[in-house]
């Protein structure tokens, strides 16, 4: 049961296509796990269809149809790096589809087969290949019992729990739960499940420093 959802306006922005790719990824991954939010996205996309439909058509250039017909057999060229992997790979099914497309090969063992990089004893990380100025997109794996030092944000931190869970002042977060924290939140998440907590974390601006120690040990503060 998912208890924490993205705010409706974020789902709306996703449907309108106005979110930056990292945030759209967090929303899409949540929606892959949450039928309720998927329905809200369907509604907003249907609204987009209706908006498209109310426009007065503008005739195409002469020859446009022939030009497109001539290109139908062209091989598809991915204009952006694909990073896609076969969904049939064993272990891949544990990882929600929208996210899977940003990861390298996922082998049997699912999450464990990913190239985790140790940051501290309690924390490992994988940076995802989305290069956008001002954003940091990663998977974070926190050991059971780990706490993240108190921090606040200058921008917004989006967190989607994928496995395990954590708690903070605002409640308990389990797989599928989505948290959205801005400068009004000072939070201190604690991993209180028996298994590690794996989350997709998107930071959308440099964070506010809460102290030298926090800066050194806290990858949530690193851009």
């Amino acid at each position, binding site marked *: 049961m998912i208890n924490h959802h993205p*705010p*409706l*306006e974020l789902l*709306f*922005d996703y449907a*309108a*296509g*106005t*979110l*930056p*790719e990292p945030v*759209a*990824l967090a929303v*899409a*991954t949540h*929606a*892959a*796990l949450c*039928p*309720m939010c*998927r*329905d*809200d*996205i*369907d*509604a*907003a*996309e*249907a*609204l*987009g*269809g*209706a*908006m*498209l*439909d*109310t*426009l*007065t*058509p*503008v*005739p*195409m*250039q002469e020859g*446009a*149809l022939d*030009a*497109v*017909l001539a*290109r*139908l057999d062209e091989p*598809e060229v991915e*204009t*952006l790096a694909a990073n896609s992997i076969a969904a049939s790979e064993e272990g891949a099914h544990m990882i*929600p*589809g*929208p996210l899977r*497309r*940003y990861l390298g090969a996922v082998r049997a063992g699912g999450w464990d087969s990913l190239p985790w990089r140790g940051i501290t004893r309690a924390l490992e990380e994988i940076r995802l290949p989305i290069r*956008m100025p001002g954003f940091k997109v990663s998977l974070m794996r926190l050991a059971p019992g780990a706490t993240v030092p108190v921090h606040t944000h200058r921008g917004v931190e989006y967190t989607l729990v994928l496995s395990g869970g954590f708690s903070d002042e605002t409640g308990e977060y389990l797989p599928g739960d989505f948290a959205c924290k801005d400068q009004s939140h000072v939070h201190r998440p604690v991993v209180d499940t028996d298994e590690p907590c794996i989350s997709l974390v998107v930071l959308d601006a440099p964070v506010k420093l809460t102290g030298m120690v926090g800066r050194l040990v806290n990858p949530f503060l690193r851009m």
Partner: protein
Amino acid sequence: MRDGSTVRDTSRVIRPGGPRVVLHYRLTVGLDMSTAFVIDGVPQLNLGVRFRSRDRDAATRMMQAGARLDNDRLCDLIEAVAQHKDRRAFSELFRHFAPRLKAFGIRQGSDAATADELAQEAMLALWRKAATFDRSRASATTWVFTIVRNKRIDMFRRQRHPEVALDEAAEQPSEEAAPDDRLQWSTAGDLLSRVLATLPQDQIVVLQKAFYEDKSHSVIAEELNLPLGTVKSRIRLGLARLRQALPEEQL
């Protein structure tokens, strides 16, 4: 036929000795009018033209730009492309959608040539992605909207739009969004257009900025010089209004 609508037939011979042309039009108490031509008692192509009576100029232009097809027909055509690589079906889809996609590009601030390119690229994507279309999930127009949205992000922002794929929808069966609920959005196209026309102007402005001008809700708030909460509540009200309208009208 919905309650309160009337059917009126006009019958005239355009040319002495020529065929008898009958124009059927159905007036719904709301705003729509749909027409069908009958020549010598034989129904011709149902143009399915719907237009708001207070927007006749637009309707005339729409007819000039190509007949409007209904959702079932569009779904059939997309499936023909998916299953048989049917170029005639694609051409028909092109004539229906491309001028609308071009209008979408222009409304978003592109010049005519760029908007034409966007429309062509989106139609090419339609050809390639036709197999992913599922008429139980979205109307044809909504699906095409998502294609042009993604193409716009790809072309102008050089980013991707991570999609919630269909297989995942199947993986997570849920009572929260039963198939019946999902069907609503796939069949609601014309209804949504009509509900849209009844929304208050302040909500319409927000929707236009989001869908036509590619602006997120926080940018909209800045531009309109409104508190973020106001913009959020307008989005919520607009979506809630659409939801409320659905079940009654679809019964």
